[in-house]
C-alpha cells in the first residue's frame, strides 16, 4: 500500500514536471512603447562583453531596457534547460555552445531568426555554419573565438630567436627547446600546453581534416608525439602536474614561466587587463597557430557564441532587434573595444580592437583569412564521445598508455560503446 502511494506520487511528480514544458503560443505584446527585454547571461561580473553590449544597445534604443538574467557559468546549460522546460519567458537566450543550441533548436524552443542572419549577411558572420539547421537559423553568433599562439617577446629577444611568424610544428618544437632555460632563478618552459584535450585533439582534427566523432583517431598520432616529446624533454610543464595542481594557464604566461602558449582569443582581454592593472609586465604578442607545413593556409579551431530568441518571449520584435544589433557592426565594435573577438568582421571592427598589440604579426594573425574549424562537431553523440576522448587523453598524457594503444582504445570505445 505504502509503496504504491509513493510510486503514484513519484509518477505524478515526474509527469507534472514533464508537462509543464508544454505551453501554448505566447501572447505577443505591443512593442511600440517602452519595453524591458530580459537576456540570459553567465558570470556578468567577469564577462564584461555583456555589459558593453547592453550599454551600447540601450544607447541606440532608448525605449528598450535590458534586464540581465545572471546565471553561474558552470551551471549555465543545466539552468537554461530547466528554465525552458518550465516555460520560462526570458526573451533572449545566450547560446554558450553549439551543442546546447542544437538541443534547444531541435526541441522547437527557439524562434526562427533566419531573417536576421539574412539582413546581416551570413558571409559577414564568422562561425555561422554550425547554426545552419536545414537552411534555417535559430540563433545568430556575435562572438567567434579561435585559437592562436601567444608568445613572450621578452623571452624571445633574450634567447635571440625570431618571433614565431607562420611556423610549422617542427619549428615550434625546436623553438620550445631553444627557449627553455632559466631567467633570474625561475625555470622557463619553452611552451605551455594546457591540460584540455582540445590542445592536442582539436588542433589535430582541424589541421589533418580528421573527424572527432568518427571513431577513427589515427590522425591524432603526430600531435600526441609532439606533446609528449615536449614534456619528456622538459620543454613544457608535464600534464600530470598541470592537471593535479590545477595550474592556471594565465599564471604560467603572465609570470613569464612559459615563452609560448597555444590558447583561445578569449584570453586577449584577460591579459590586456592584467597588464593594465599592473599584475603582469609581460611583453606579449600573438601569432597564427603553427601548421603541419609552414607555408600552409592558417587552419585552427574555435567556437562561436550566439544569441537566440526564446519562442515563449513576449517581445519577439524587440528581441530580434537586439540580435541584429548585437551580432551586427555596432555590437561588434562594442565588444571589440574590450578585447573580445566579434563574429562580425569589417575594417571598422578591426580598428576598434585596441586590446591587441599593434605589431604587424599580431595584426596579421587577426586580419588574415583563415579556416576556423568547430572545436567539437555537433551530434547527439558529442557529449558521450567527448567523455571518452577526455579519459583516454589523460592516460596518454600521463604515460599510462602508449600513443598507439591509447588511440586504439579511443577507436574501440567510441565505435563499440557510442556509435554501435
Amino acid at each position, binding site marked *: 500500500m505504502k509503496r504504491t502511494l*509513493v*510510486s503514484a*506520487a*513519484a*509518477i505524478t*511528480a*515526474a*509527469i507534472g*514536471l*514533464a*508537462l509543464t*514544458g508544454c505551453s501554448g503560443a505566447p501572447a505577443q505584446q505591443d512593442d511600440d512603447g517602452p519595453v524591458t527585454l530580459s537576456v540570459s547571461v553567465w558570470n556578468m561580473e567577469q564577462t564584461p562583453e555583456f555589459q558593453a553590449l547592453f550599454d551600447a544597445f540601450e544607447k541606440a534604443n532608448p525605449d528598450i531596457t535590458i534586464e540581465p538574467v545572471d546565471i553561474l557559468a558552470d551551471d549555465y546549460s*543545466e539552468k537554461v*534547460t*530547466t528554465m*525552458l*522546460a518550465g516555460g520560462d519567458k526570458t526573451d533572449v537566450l545566450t547560446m554558450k555552445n553549439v551543442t546546447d543550441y542544437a538541443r534547444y533548436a531541435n*526541441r522547437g524552443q527557439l524562434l526562427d531568426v533566419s531573417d536576421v542572419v539574412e539582413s546581416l549577411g551570413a558571409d559577414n558572420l564568422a562561425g555561422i555554419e554550425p547554426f545552419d539547421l536545414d537552411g534555417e537559423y535559430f540563433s545568430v553568433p556575435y562572438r567567434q573565438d579561435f585559437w592562436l599562439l601567444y608568445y613572450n617577446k621578452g623571452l624571445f629577444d633574450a634567447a635571440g630567436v625570431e618571433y614565431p611568424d607562420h611556423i610549422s610544428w617542427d619549428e615550434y618544437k625546436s623553438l620550445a627547446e631553444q627557449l627553455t632555460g632559466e631567467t633570474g632563478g625561475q625555470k622557463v618552459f619553452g611552451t605551455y600546453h594546457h591540460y584540455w584535450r582540445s590542445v592536442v585533439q582539436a588542433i589535430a582534427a582541424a589541421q589533418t581534416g580528421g573527424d572527432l566523432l568518427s571513431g577513427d583517431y589515427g590522425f591524432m598520432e603526430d600531435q600526441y608525439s609532439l606533446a609528449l616529446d615536449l614534456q619528456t624533454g622538459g620543454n613544457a610543464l*608535464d*600534464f*600530470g*602536474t598541470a*592537471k*593535479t*595542481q*590545477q595550474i592556471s594557464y594565465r599564471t604560467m604566461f603572465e609570470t613569464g614561466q612559459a615563452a609560448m602558449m597555444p590558447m583561445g582569443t578569449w584570453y586577449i582581454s584577460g591579459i590586456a587587463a592584467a597588464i593594465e592593472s599592473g599584475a603582469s609586465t609581460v611583453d606579449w604578442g600573438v601569432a597564427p597557430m603553427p601548421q603541419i607545413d609552414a607555408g600552409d593556409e592558417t587552419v585552427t579551431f574555435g567556437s562561436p557564441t550566439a544569441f537566440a530568441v526564446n519562442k515563449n518571449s513576449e517581445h519577439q520584435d524587440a528581441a530580434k532587434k537586439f540580435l541584429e544589433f548585437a551580432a551586427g557592426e555596432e555590437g561588434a565594435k562594442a565588444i571589440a573595444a574590450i578585447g573580445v573577438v566579434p563574429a562580425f568582421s569589417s575594417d571598422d571592427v578591426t580598428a576598434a580592437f585596441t586590446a591587441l598589440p599593434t605589431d604587424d604579426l599580431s595584426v596579421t594573425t587577426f586580419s588574415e583569412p583563415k579556416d576556423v574549424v568547430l572545436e567539437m562537431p555537433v551530434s547527439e553523440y558529442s*557529449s*558521450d564521445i567527448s*567523455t571518452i576522448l577526455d*579519459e*583516454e587523453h*589523460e*592516460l596518454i598524457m*600521463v*604515460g*599510462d598508455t602508449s600513443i598507439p594503444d591509447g588511440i586504439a582504445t579511443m577507436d574501440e*570505445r567510441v565505435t563499440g*560503446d557510442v556509435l554501435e
Partner: protein
Amino acid sequence: MAIAATRAPVRQQSRARARRNALVGWSFILPNFIGFAVLTLIPMGAAFVIAFMEWDSYSPPEWVGVENFERLLGDQSFWIALGNTAYYAAGHIPLTMLAALGLALLLNKRIRGLGFFRTTMFFPYITSLVAVAVVWNMLFNPTMGPINQFLEWIGVQDPPGWTTTSAWSMPAVIITSVWRDMGYYMVLYLAGLQAIPQEYYEAAEVDGANAWQRFWNITIPSLRPTTFFVLIMVTIASFKVFDLIVVMTDGGPGRSTLVLSQLIYREGIRENRFGYSSAISLVLFLIVLVFTVVQFRIQKRKED
C-alpha cells in the same frame, strides 16, 4: 452492565488523550519530516520508477522496462566504477577504523595538552573539502611534493606517481579520505572508551592481566556497539563517496578513480539520462542495503 457503561467513557477519554498525544508528537516531527519527504523520500521513490523509464527531464518519460538494467550489464564504465567503489571501500573502511581506534586509544590517556590534540585530530573533518583536495594534491605532487621528497630521502628509488598515474591514484585518494575522516570516528570511539567502567581494568590488573590482555579482553568487547555503529557509518560513507574524488581526481587519470556515485551524477545531470542514472543508483542502493543487513545479522549473532 452498569460497570460496562461507566467504563466506556473512561476508555473513550483515554483514547482521546492518546490521539492528542500522537498529534502533538507528529506536529513536532512534521517540519523535519516534510523536508525529509520532499527532498529525500519522494525522490528516492521516484528513482525506483524512473529506473524503468527513459527520461531526459524534458520530454515525457517513456516506459522501457528493464532496458536500463540490460544496458548497465554491458556498460564497461559501470563495471569499472563498481570495481573502483569496492576498491575504495576495501581500503577506506578498515584503515579509517584502525586509525580512528588508534587515535582514540592514544588520546584516552591523561596527557598534557589533551584538548589540543583532540581538537587537532578533529580539524580535518571540518575543513573545506576543496581545500583538503588541493593541499593533498600538492603533497602528492610526484616531482615537487613533500611526500615523494621524503620517500626519496629515506631511500625509495622510484616513488609512486600518486594522482598522476592510474595505479596509484586510488591509494592516494584513500589516504586522503582516511586522514580526513579518522578524527570524526575517533570522537565516537572516545565516547565508547569513556563508557567502559574503570573497575574492569582494576579487577583485571589485580588478576595479573597485562596491557595487551586488558585491551583484547576488556576494551575490544566493550567497544563492540561503538565499533558496529562506526562500521555501518563508514561502510555507507565509503560506498557513497563522491565529493572528495570529484575535486581530487575527477575520476582520473582515465577511469582509474571513477566511482558509482560519480557515474550516477554524470549520466543523470550531465547527460540527461535520468532513467539510466536511476538504474545505477538502484544498484548502489542495493549494495549498501545488502552490506548493512549482513552487518546487522553478524552483529546480532555475536550478541546472542
